[in-house]
Each structure stands twice: as structure tokens, then as C-alpha cells.
């Protein structure tokens, strides 16, 4: 079934099809449509779930934790300040290995107040033990939402589906909505490995001494590493069943490219357009879309970027005092390549706080990369594009 829906509703549809059992959420622009639609779905009975309309995002995550530890499939959605408020519990749910799924609408953090998109909110949470999957289209949002539950429950790690505020969340696109029975076949009811069960009274999360804490973190890390392969397998299964795959990392027209742009989120679509144009002009330009940020698909990036001369990473985020975060991570991943095959990585800060990223913005980044490639040493690691001088 094809429907023209906004990104936020694509989330809601994904959650419904995944048969989430407990939803706990608190409204925040630009996430509100997700929960409004889910409220309607619960009210109409289309979705048989308990929706707890909590008094804060912190409580939303706590309720999801409680539900998840009791064996339920739990979901929440938030954005920006709300995600920041959840921070403590992102560690709790990540470290506690609770397969919760969250839709995170990328919105800039205050102050000053800003409801428009950038990635600093989600990327600030990169060390909390959550898988992060960035989406480019509403179809990808819907597909990823369903796959996220399967991935989370496979590796016992919570998953954050990330989509850009407004550009995706409030933008309508035609979306192919799969049949419920097909989704049910793909994603059966959750079977929890550990749960709060009066028939088997266990305690979860008791005081953990230095003698064992580190091993538990190692197990978390191993599960994160497993998640890359798990996503690949789940994505392949999705593809077999529904004819679409997304991959942890997608390459676009990279064959023979001497300059490859690395993107995430909706900037990717704009970049595809620019790549098409430049290829038409004969430039050897390609694109790598990073969907999975945590765990970071370093091996995939080394595979697809080895031997490329220049890599331009477009970051709609900034780690103040350092650089764009995707650039930083990409540089780190590619450093392991032999020097001869190691690309030069150029980082560009674009589109913060919802500033438009147009084809011209991308083209400027490409030009700056070409310029820097001929220079001996880049002036600085991060280059701000589209800012007033």
C-alpha cells in the first residue's frame, strides 16, 4: 500500500506495524506528530499498545526501560532537549541492554531556542550504548523503524532512528507501507532473554564491582560489534521480503571517483543531485552515505574509501573545539589504511540550526576540497561553509 505521508507518520506506521506494546513519550517539536498519530492509532484500537503519556522525556525513557525489562516491545520518540534530558537513562538502557527503539528527530539544541534540524542532539549521545541509524527518506524511516526493533532484539541494544527535523519529519513523500502479516513474519513477537518475572525472581542492575564491571562493558562492546553484521543480515532479509535494502553504508557513483563525499541524513539527497550533475560534467565525484553511526561502520568505510584521493565529510553538527563528528570518526577509521591508499579527509560544517543546505552549499564544499587538495596542508580541520564572513 502506497501512502503519501510525512516522516513523522512514517515512524508511527513503522511502530504500528512492529506491534510495539508499550509507548511512553512526551511531546516536543518537531516530534509531536509521531506521538499524535500513535495516540490516534492506540485510541482507535489499530495499535494494541499501552501509551503512557508521561510528564517528561526522562520518565518516558524510564517507563520504556521498565516495560522493556518486563519483556515488552517498547518505543519512544523525542528530539533535542528531550533527548538531552534522557541522557542519564540512555546510558541506563544501553548499559542495561534493553532493546528499546526510539525515533529521534534531529533538532538543534538551545540556546537560543531553535526547532530546526541539526545532528548535535543525537550525536551528543553517541557514547550511551545506543545504535544510531540515520535516515534519508520517509520510506527509509518506515523500513528502518521496523528493522530497528529486530536489530535491537537480536543484539539486546537499544536503537535510535534519526531523521532530520522538518526536512524529513514534516515533509510528505510517497511511502510503500507493507502488509501487517508480512511484517509479522519478519518481526515476530519479542522473546526477552532476561526479564522481570515473578516465576524467576532475578534482580537486574545491582551494584557491580570493579571485579566484573569491565567485563560487562566488554560484552556490550562485542554486542555493538555484532550489530554491524546483524544489521546487514536483517537488511538483507528485509530486502528479500520487501524488495528494498538500505545497508549500514551506501555507495553512490563512487566507481573511479577521486573525490567522495560522506554524508548522513537528508543532506545525502541534495548531495546525490550534485553528484549526478558533476558526473554529467565528467567530474569523478562519488557519494558514501553513512546510515549507521553507532556502531561505527569503520571497516565498510575503509573498504569503500581505500585508494580514493580526497574525502569530503559533510557534518550538520559540530563538536565544539574539535571538528564535525562524522569527519572525526571517518578520519579515525581511515587512518588504519596503508598510507598509500589513505584518502585525505576534508571536514565541512554545514546547515547548523536548520540553515539550508542547497546544491550550492555542496558544490562549495567540493570546490574547497579541490582547492585544498592542491594546497600542501589544509588551513584547518573543519571548514565552515555558508557562514557570513
Amino acid at each position, binding site marked *: 500500500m502506497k501512502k503519501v505521508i510525512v516522516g513523522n507518520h512514517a515512524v508511527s506506521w513503522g511502530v504500528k506495524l512492529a506491534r510495539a506494546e*508499550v509507548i*511512553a513519550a512526551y511531546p516536543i517539536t518537531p516530534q509531536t506528530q509521531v506521538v499524535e498519530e500513535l495516540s490516534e492509532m492506540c485510541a482507535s484500537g489499530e495499535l494494541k*499498545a499501552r501509551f503512557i503519556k508521561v510528564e517528561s522525556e*526522562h520518565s518516558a525513557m*524510564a*517507563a520504556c526501560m*521498565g516495560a522493556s525489562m518486563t519483556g515488552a516491545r517498547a518505543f519512544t520518540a523525542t528530539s533535542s532537549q528531550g533527548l538531552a534530558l534522557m541522557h542519564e537513562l540512555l546510558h*541506563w538502557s544501553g548499559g542495561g541492554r534493553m532493546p528499546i527503539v526510539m525515533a529521534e528527530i534531529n533538532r538543534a539544541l538551545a540556546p537560543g531556542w531553535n526547532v530546526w534540524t541539526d545532528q548535535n542532539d543525537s550525536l551528543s549521545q553517541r557514547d550511551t550504548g545506543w545504535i544510531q541509524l540515520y535516515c534519508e527518506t520517509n520510506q527509509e524511516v518506515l523500513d528502518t523503524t521496523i528493522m530497528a526493533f529486530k536489530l535491537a532484539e537480536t543484539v539486546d541494544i537499544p536503537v535510535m532512528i534519526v531523521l532530520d527535523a522538518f526536512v524529513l519529519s514534516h515533509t510528505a513523500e510517497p511511502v510503500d507501507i507493507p502488509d501487517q502479516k508480512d511484517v509479522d513474519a519478519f518481526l515476530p513477537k519479542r522473546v526477552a532473554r532476561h526479564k522481570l518475572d*515473578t516465576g524467576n525472581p532475578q534482580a537486574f542492575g545491582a*551494584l557491580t564491582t570493579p571485579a566484573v564491571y569491565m567485563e560487562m562493558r566488554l560484552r556490550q562492546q562485542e554486542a555493538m560489534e555484532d550489530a554491524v553484521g546483524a544489521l546487514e543480515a536483517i537488511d538483507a532479509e528485509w530486502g528479500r521480503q520487501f524488495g528494498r535494502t538500505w545497508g549500514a553504508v551506501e555507495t553512490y557513483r563512487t566507481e573511479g571517483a577521486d573525490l567522495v563525499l560522506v554524508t548522513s541524513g537528508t543532506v545525502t539527497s541534495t548531495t546525490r543531485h550534485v553528484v549526478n550533475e558533476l558526473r554529467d560534467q565528467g567530474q569523478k565525484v562519488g557519494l558514501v552515505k553513512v546510515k549507521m553511526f553507532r556502531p561505527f561502520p569503520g571497516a565498510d568505510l575503509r573498504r569503500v574509501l581505500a585508494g580514493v584521493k580526497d574525502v569530503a565529510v559533510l557534518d550538520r553538527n559540530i563538536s565544539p573545539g574539535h571538528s564535525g563528528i562524522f569527519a572525526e570518526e571517518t578520519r579515525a577509521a581511515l587512518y588504519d589504511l596503508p598510507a598509500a591508499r589513505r584518502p585525505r579527509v576534508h571536514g565541512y560544517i554545514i546547515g547548523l540550526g536548520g540553515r539550508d543546505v542547497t546544491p550550492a552549499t555542496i558544490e562549495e564544499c567540493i570546490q574547497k576540497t579541490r582547492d585544498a587538495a592542491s594546497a600542501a596542508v589544509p588551513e584547518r580541520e573543519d571548514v565552515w561553509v555558508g557562514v557570513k564572513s
Partner: protein
Amino acid sequence: MSQIPVSELIPRDELMTSGHLACPGCGGSLAMRLVLKALGPKTIMSLPACCWTIVAGPYPQSSLGVPVFHTAFETAASTAAGIRAALDMAGDTETTVLAWAGDGGTFDIGLQALSGAAERNEDILYVCYDNEAYMNTGIQRSSSTPWGAWTTTTPAGTPKSHPKKDLLAILASHGIPYGATASVAFPADLVAKVQKAKAIRGTRFLHVLAPCPPGWRSSDEETIDLARQAVHTRVFPLIEVEDGQRWKFSIEHPAEPVEGYIRRQGRFRHLTDEQIRHIQAETDARFARLEKRVKFGT
């Protein structure tokens, strides 16, 4: 019979094991033991940061015979709401979801989540075991700490200068179906209240005074007697409130002077006679307000 029957009103089965890590004479561990006896094994516990985080024992131990979710400090009620929702989805209406928090996690950092849960009338039983300060972190004042008390953050030279928060009234104002105070010195009353609460659906709140020998600077063996004296002096009256409006005293409260209660505790050692008279006056006034609530409703 002349002796007040107690033991026959206390269920026999133990759901708490020996070897837990509470200090000797811990009122909070006794409260846990009694509450679990009253609830039985079909109970799931949301346990935020508090003394009990330690008392329950380190991984891979648990002194509690029911499933326990060790959760974040401010999330006793919200985690419990999630557990309840999941049980509802699984069709389990029998299991009681117990949120078990200290006064810090209830009066202070967890109050928002508790208020949210109470407003939504989440089907949970929230028990606050109140030792009147942040004891697990080494005796810092909370909004439950009584006026005039010494803590490590309210030194004797400048003891706490604000009265204890009237938490039951706050909860009652949410219109929850059941709220009550209870005391480890009145175990039969405590158990009866938990059993009553267990049979009610919606948010139920129990505020249990649990003396803490290290924090109150009292002797280990005085825990029960102090808890009893707190009731008998009307410092901590035993009361129930239904639907936020029908208030009822659980016992006749003798009006023993507060001085006897205050003077026994090292945390009040610095108080002058005049300050104790102030506590007496405040206690009397609070009790008079309670009497009004009992008489006229809220």
C-alpha cells in the same frame, strides 16, 4: 487478651533473605521485610538509588525474593509505570508493581515522576521508606529532614531551617485512591495497609517512617522505640486518606511531649529548650491541621 496481637497479623513467608547489607537496626530493611510479607511473591519491584541499592546486595546477589529492577534515582515511579504497562499488555493483572524509594528519591529528585504517575493514576504501589536524609551518601539533608536536624550539609551550627515536606498531602492532592503513613513500630498496621493497598487499583502511596541509627545518631536497638515515639508524639501520625479527601487516623495518638523523642537523637543534640518548644508548637499545629482534614476532608 491483654497483649496486643501482632505476630498473627504478619504473614509468615519471608521474601527477604538474611545476609543483606543494611546497617544493624536498620528501619528501612525492616520496612522492606514487612512490606514484602504483605505483598507476597507476585510482586515486581522498581528500586531506584537509595540505601536499598546497597542493602539488596551486589551482583550476583539479591536479598529480595521478588524480581527487582535497579533503576535511576528519580525514576522509581516512572520505571514502575513501564513495568505495569508491560504486565497489562501481557494480561497479568495479579502482580503488584512496587516502587520502593527512599525520601531523597521520593520527596526530592523523584517527586516529578511520582507526581506524574499519581496524576495518571498509574496502577502501582509506591512505598517511600523515609529515614529523613540522604543516608546512603552519608547523611545529607533532604526535603524530608525535619526542622532543626543536623546532617552533614546542615551542620549543628546551622541546622536545617525548613520544615519537613508534607508529602502525603501532596500525594492526596492528586486524588489518588489510597495514601497512608505507616511505621515499622506498628507492623500489624503497616501490613494491613499494604494489604489494603494491594487490593486497590490505581496509584497507592505509603509513607513509612524508618529510623536510621547512623543518620539519626541513635542506638541500634532504639529503632522501633523511636519510630513508636514519633507516632506517640504526633511527629509522625498514622493516617490514611482515600481518594485524596477522606482522611482517617489509624490509631488514637497520645500527645507525648516531643522533647523525649528529640532528646534521644544525636542529630538534635544541639537544640535548645526554646527550639524544642518550637518543634512542639509546629507539631501541635500540624496535628491540628490533620484533625481538621479528618473532620472536614480536604
